[in-house]
């Protein structure tokens, strides 16, 4: 005997999620069945997110209002754009309070292994912004992985012909870390990214 059709429809749907295979989908589906209150809670939040949250038409971040609060704020430095891979990176930088410019969220990185080329990312909209708005500096803040570097290289090429300063965030020793305990590549990168001490 097969499981009821609507149950199979649920497990099939759950498998559309990244990183969820058949086994975990079945486990999740049984969980929802046996914990209906939590199932209800999850159902409501998905519904709310889908109806109320969208992508900012300017920067690509997730937002309830479009344009997002950052893009529409009069207090931000509108001449600097920080380019990140995903919305969570924006929130991390905002939590730290170390940046007062605008953002641009790529929605991923260039990665043929994941079927992603430049056209699958918000790159055209970035180039358009740099052409249209009065931007002085683009800070590329993708991760220091192969894909993050590849994306940074691509952006550098695309932005080269624009009259804009292109920078890459520095990588180095985490604060509070003894040099003794930093791994070798962190040290290597910190050395490469060294700068003069000014007074």
């Amino acid at each position, binding site marked *: 005997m097969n499981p009821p059709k609507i149950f199979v429809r649920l497990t099939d749907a759950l498998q559309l999620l990244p990183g969820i295979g058949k086994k975990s989908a079945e486990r999740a589906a049984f969980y929802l069945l046996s914990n209906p209150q939590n199932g209800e809670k999850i159902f409501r939040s998905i519904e709310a997110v889908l109806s109320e949250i969208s992508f900012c038409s300017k920067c690509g971040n997730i937002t309830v209002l479009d344009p997002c609060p950052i893009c529409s704020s009069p207090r931000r430095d509108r001449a600097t754009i920080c380019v990140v891979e995903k919305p969570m990176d924006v929130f991390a930088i905002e939590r730290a309070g170390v940046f007062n410019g605008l953002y641009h969220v790529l929605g991923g990185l260039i*990665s*043929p*292994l994941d*079927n992603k*080329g430049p056209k699958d990312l918000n790159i055209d909209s970035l180039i358009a912004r740099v052409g249209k708005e009065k931007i002085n500096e683009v800070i590329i803040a993708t991760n220091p*992985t192969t894909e993050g570097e*590849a994306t940074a*290289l691509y952006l550098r090429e695309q932005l080269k012909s624009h009259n804009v300063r292109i920078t890459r965030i520095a990588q180095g020793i985490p604060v509070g870390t003894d040099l003794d305990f930093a*791994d070798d*590549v962190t040290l290597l990168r910190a050395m490469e990214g060294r700068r003069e001490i000014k007074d």
Partner: protein
Amino acid sequence: MYLKSLYVKNFRNFRAIELDFEPGRNLILGDNGVGKTNLVEIVYFLSTFGSFRTYDDRDLLHFGESFFVVSGEYGDVEVKVRYSDEKEVFINGVKKRRLRDGFGTIPVIAFTSGDLDIVNGSPARRRRFMDIGISLYRRPYIEMLSLYNRAWRQRNSWLNQVKTGRELGAVEVWEEQLSRYASPIIKARVEHVNKLIDYAIPLFYSLTGQELKISYKEGGDYSNLGEQLRKMRDREIERGYTLYGPHRDDIVFWVDNHPAKTVASFGTKRALTVSLRMAQARILTEVRGEEPIIILDEIIGELDKERIGSLSKLMSEYEQVLIATAREDIRWGGNFNVYRIENKNGAPVIKKDN
């Protein structure tokens, strides 16, 4: 630095070991199949977090078990590796975020019967020989290899997609990264081969009286790899993978001007692998300023008396040497600590001679 004590749980045929070692020469004796190689394999594993006999860590689990723990104490350093599904490395009790951050903390060079594959095996086997040799004294090299490898897979995936009609774009960024990561890899390999040449050739001559030549075979046009990748793009699309680069490097050995792989005798090949390992041990001593622990697994029994004599002289330079062999008569002048492994009701028991 030398291995002072070893603690083992569920590794190969050992359920549990607690064993002390001494500096100098340690002889591990026992009949075939009792676990001599398994014991020295642990010491090697504590250095490189891999075996010299298998690529699959599951082979190392005591039959039917789901985890093993090995740990070694070396003066004021303790290295511990725990395996169950995943490998975790602890140096002095602190877990390393990634395995490679602890790689080679204790340098070990192992002379094993499997070393013959360095001569007889595929280019991949020789690249592995170089890569582990280099990583033991230059850890960022491991990171470069992994970055290169990732960029290589990305470009191959790009080539394959074009082959099936989907043009993703931005292939240049992978080519730029391939050549960027290739250059420190190539530089390190050239240096390593040059040092192998310096040390292995005279050693080989003293063992065999024959002339050895070693050459590094480049896997691409290293005067401009980026340009080569660009030019070859169309041909590589047909093949579906990146042809040129350090992933194709090789080393070639010549004995008296004949290629060793196809022409040399078994004894000559053995002398060659012994010379290569000896050279790696010296390179480690030179670059790190500390001597590796030396493991000799069985190969000594394959050599004739005269070569055993030369090898033993070379070995006396090292602070600690572990020799696993079934041959009691292998002892040469000087002191040995002797460990005997015996099979008691199907389980190995290790005893130290007084």
